[in-house]
């Protein structure tokens, strides 16, 4: 198991290096960021000044290496638009997106896992069919539409929940639903098929034959197994949510990482964009790594070998 961990770690580092090269080149693809940064009415002198100040006149690989060097040492650069170091800016925005992501994932799991279990316990019944329809319909709804629909329904018509900002915990409910439901169908299908398989397995038959209560059979000897792949998928989905939160944060005017990314892209705030791309990619990479390890830890057959 030790060598597996080391190999996975190496791959993760390698992936992150490539990702950092991609994100770095992406923002420099247009040629000269200084032109965009200086704005439309800038004089050639001003542009040259910016170019020099940010080192855009140096060779590409030098720029990249110095950027990575700074990044690794904790210096994320300085935002041209906000006139502020990127580090503190990120620190301000990350908690909001992280909270949103956790809540969204919690919502997805709370809906999808019980539905999947129920669908597996009574396959091909009305409940199973309804769960399937919900899953198919859910996946056809883009999150900006579901966000708008939620705002209209619960914010405007019913006036139950706030629809803009992050002032209270209630502000997080609708965005979390909008972000989380998209992950629910995949989790539900996985839970259902996993439960169907495990309920047919010999050890579940043993549990029944020895008079264990249905709860114990289904949860301890059934779900315990079916949940292992769900954990991996849920972790990956959490990574997607961090990237996908840009839409939901924009609609609900939440000041998280996604919204910051969106605004920075429109302002062409290079350092912020790069930092966000790398932070989200790194989070995703770490999460998938964690999911793999967690998977191994949950399965005694892997853990003890």
């Amino acid at each position, binding site marked *: 198991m030790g060598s597996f961990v080391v190999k996975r770690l190496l791959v993760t580092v390698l992936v992150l290096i490539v990702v950092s090269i991609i994100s770095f080149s992406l923002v420099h693809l247009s040629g000269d960021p200084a032109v965009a940064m200086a704005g439309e009415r800038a004089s050639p002198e001003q542009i040259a000044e910016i170019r020099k100040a940010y080192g855009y006149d140096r060779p590409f690989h030098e720029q990249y290496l110095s950027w990575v060097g700074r990044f690794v040492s904790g210096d994320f650069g300085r935002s041209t638009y906000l006139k502020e170091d990127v580090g503190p800016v990120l620190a301000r925005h990350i908690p909001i997106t992280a909270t949103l992501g956790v809540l969204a994932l919690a919502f997805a799991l709370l809906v999808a896992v019980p539905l999947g279990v129920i669908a597996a316990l009574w396959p091909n019944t009305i409940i199973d069919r309804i769960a399937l329809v919900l899953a198919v319909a859910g996946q056809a709804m883009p999150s900006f539409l579901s966000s708008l629909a939620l705002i209209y329904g619960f914010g405007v018509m019913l006036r139950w929940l706030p629809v803009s900002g992050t002032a209270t915990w209630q502000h997080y409910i609708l965005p979390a639903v909008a972000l989380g439901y998209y992950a629910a169908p995949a989790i539900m299908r996985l839970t259902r098929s996993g439960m169907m398989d495990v309920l047919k*397995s*010999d*050890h579940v*038959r*043993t*549990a*029944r*034959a*020895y*008079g*264990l*209560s*249905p709860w*114990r059979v289904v949860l*301890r*000897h059934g779900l*315990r*197994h079916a949940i292992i792949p769900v954990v991996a998928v849920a972790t990956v989905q959490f990574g997607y949510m961090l990237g996908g939160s840009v839409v939901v944060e924009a609609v609900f005017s939440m000041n998280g990482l996604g919204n910051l990314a969106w605004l920075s892209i429109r302002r062409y705030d290079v350092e912020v964009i790069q930092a966000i791309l790398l932070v989200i990619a790194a989070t995703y990479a770490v999460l998938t790594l964690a999911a793999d390890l967690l998977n191994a830890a*949950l*399965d*005694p*057959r892997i853990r*003890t070998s």
Partner: protein
Amino acid sequence: MTPLLEIRSLSLEIPVNDGLLRPIRSVDLTVERGETVAIVGESGCGKSLTSLAVMGLQPQNARLSAERLAFQGESLLGLDRRRWQAIRGKRIAMIFQDPMTAFDPCYRMGDQMAEILRQHRPVSRAEARERIVALLRRVGVPAPEDRLDQFPHQLSGGLRQRMMIATALLCEPELIIADEPTTALDVTIQAQILRLLADVQQETGVGLILVTHDIGVVAGLADRVVVMYGGEVVESGTTDEVLGSPRHPYTAGLMRSIPVPGRTRRGQPLGHIPGLVPRPIAPLTACGFLDRCEFRHEACAAAPVPLRSGAGERQLRCLLPIETPRQPAEPLVAATAIA
């Protein structure tokens, strides 16, 4: 005295895509207290389904019917979930074929056994542990304390099956159903496990149903033998009666496929019954064994064959004479006549 287990005319029907499967057809079976009954037949003859039906564990979509299905005189038909739970594992315990998969791979052996014991008995963890260790010692598991902390995959097949037997003994059941307990094991281990089962049975006086496709293991273990084919009981009687002079062509065929020490040489092909167990899809209109029988004659194809009683405890589902042993070399009608 009421028998330990009494099954009269048990049938199971399972709807499938292309019709109605009838894997168990009007099976009769009785087990007395302290008795060992072997159910023998090739794979697919309905042995496992019969065992599972006794515990109410038939497939969800299966329709079960029986004239009588009673344990210690109490009917098991239409029991609710709670009453079933109080019987399963506590009064009737089951030993499964594949000890590899029968335990939950996610939990330690000790925890799984304790979970079952504590489901049925109000004992503390420590008491449970004590009883489990004692039982493991009894069934010949070396270093029992260490086994408790191991996961199933860390044990050998033989060890796992010993622990399965210990699990069955946990709540001192009145009946143990062992469904092919040695099929998945190495030959040398098979003998040990069968020996252990016999010892345990002797010691505890538990009723034992031994399901097997290998009629060779039955001698010396079972008091009575029930031969199943195509979901029906085709022959039954005391072990001496059935093994001593098998009357049903199917039983005789099963007997021919046992290697005989001294006579069968290594690598020498064993006798076998040509053909396959049919899929139990249609209602019977003739003898169920007709297709594969070397003694079939016209009457066999005319109608389903009833179970007849002979001398002693012998019962036979065949039109051949029940009393006089027949000469296997002289079929009554040439087999080609109907084929």
